[in-house]
């Protein structure tokens, strides 16, 4: 009824609520949410603007720029570019700002004697 799968080697259950309220974890959670929520809003809005333009601004999207290449095609390709860029930004942010902190907290939980990290 409690945890899904009691691993045989795990020490007695840590105090999750205490860890959850610790300064380190609060910081990790803040860092994650501060990045992913605004970024999600940003790419969803940019995608919706693009879809609405494609849906309701045909003349604008059909404006030719170079040869047969028009605004619609360029904006569509920019969706590819922005997706690749956001992916790269997130990976860099996670490597630098999330992973080290998450690792420290995890090691504090899984091996409480060996580190000062974890609770409080």
């Amino acid at each position, binding site marked *: 009824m409690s945890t899904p799968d009691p691993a045989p080697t795990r020490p007695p259950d840590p105090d999750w*609520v205490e860890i959850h309220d610790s300064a380190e974890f609060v910081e990790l959670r803040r860092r994650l949410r501060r990045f*992913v929520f605004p970024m999600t809003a940003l*790419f969803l809005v940019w*995608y919706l603007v693009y879809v609405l333009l*494609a849906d309701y601004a*045909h003349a604008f999207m*059909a404006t030719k720029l170079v040869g*047969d290449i028009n605004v619609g095609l360029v904006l569509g390709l920019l969706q590819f570019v922005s997706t690749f860029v956001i*992916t790269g930004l997130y990976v860099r942010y996670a490597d630098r700002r999330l992973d080290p902190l998450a690792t420290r907290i*995890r090691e504090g939980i899984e091996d409480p004697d060996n580190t000062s990290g974890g609770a409080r």
Partner: protein
Amino acid sequence: MSAVAVSAVAAGVTGNNPALNIGIFAAFVAFTLVIVFRASRNTKTAADYYAAGRSFTGPQNGIAISGDYLSAASFLGIAGAIALNGYDGFLYSIGFLVAWLVALLLVAELLRNTGKYTMGDVLAFRMRQRPVRAAAATSTMVVSFFYLLAQMAGAGGLVALLLGISSKTGQSVVIAVVGVIMIVYVLVGGMKGTTWVQIIKAALLITGALAMTIWVLAKFGFNLSSLLGGAVDAGGKTGEALLSPGKQYGATGTSKLDFLSLGLALVLGTAGLPHILMRFYTVPTAKEARRSVVWAIGLIGIFYLFTLVLGYGAGAIVGPDAIRNAPGKANSAAPLLAQALGGPVLLGVIAAVAFATILAVVAGLTITASASFAHDIYANVIKKDKLEDKNAEVRVARITAVVIGVVAIVGGIVANGQNVAFLVALAFAVAASANLPTILYSLFWKRFNTSGALWSTYGGLAASIILIVFSPAVSGKPSTAATPSMVTGVDFHWFPLENPGIVSIPLAFLLGWLGTVLSKERRDDKYAEMEVRALTGAGAEKATPH
């Protein structure tokens, strides 16, 4: 009209060599079967069967994800949609790609850290196990079924084009053969074997598409503008409309709203597709899950750029009339282009890759649906987590896989000839409505509870299915329309849009909120544990050593 059609069919089959096509495909099957049998040696436990012992690396899993995701609908459907409808086909691929950011930023890593094999695991973490597992398994099986139908329906058209089999009976036999091979993959290889099939298939598909893309571009002096110009010229009077949005969806206010609805379903559906979610459990850590999404985004993005060139290339080189009149219609654009470029040999290779695509995707869907049934329903709902013999769960999963395989064969025969891209879009709409709201609430909202999860899952599922059944996609459009309804002759539609997403997705979010606040259940301590585990990976499922 019929004379034109007959000559176009003849043109589509001239130079086609069915024996060669079958030979190349048989070689693929033989090669992958050897790999699957080798992989099966290490498949013993449930973690092996469902999650390949969590032993794949991020890049390997990323390639497998792209193999799972780049279905027949992506390759045949989008290339054909671009060839016939131009820019509106391109819009599909943009939605399919941008959607991966939802998976990357919000879902992949947290899911990997909190679950074991299925979506139901994540919900069961802090809610009442039996009802939420039953709900998750139900929506998993419904979404997988829609997706399966789309793949199998595509197989029929492909058979007609590539093997020169035009009788419905003959096509049905080939669909059954494809289904049986798929069942063997799943039964013997489990998740590990299936993953290797995905990896090999993704490599073949992307290489094949790359070769054709370079070939097409070379014909137009590596100038994108002259390729577009070629497509416009071949399109005749309506050719100019290929370059800007609106050819397919721009006709009326309703069709514009329909397009917006489709766009929403595409971008929010991916992170709710059960067979994609399950792939995140095949890697050892959350960091590898992240790497796999990064690889998947790179490969999928590049592939969709290829389909842009291939679609307009098919329009310019093969011509829209020849595509429209070929057996398999829009789905035949890419194979016809291959034939026009490289003759029967390239056609044979591309045909084999397309078959391999259907085979691999169907295998991935089958293992997901069978895992969900065996793990969520059988082990935890029916046996109430008191299963003595852990092998029994895997045995049930294998039996379920056979049943699903048979259902897929029958469904594929019945759905033969339906528009593949459209069926996939429906699967995305159901996934975005029934699964995504539940997953996001579960991962990010402390107050969320059993009642809320049931409301959002069943509510989103029911809303999307009911709206589809009473949409013009199912009834009401004449059989002479460009995309006729599934059922002709009767008209019981009252919902004006073909895609339900714009109504059903917000409704599911609303229902999840309402169901939550109407229930007193609150498990703040379990949420604290879940959030710590999700963000840090503490106590997450480890890879099994071999």
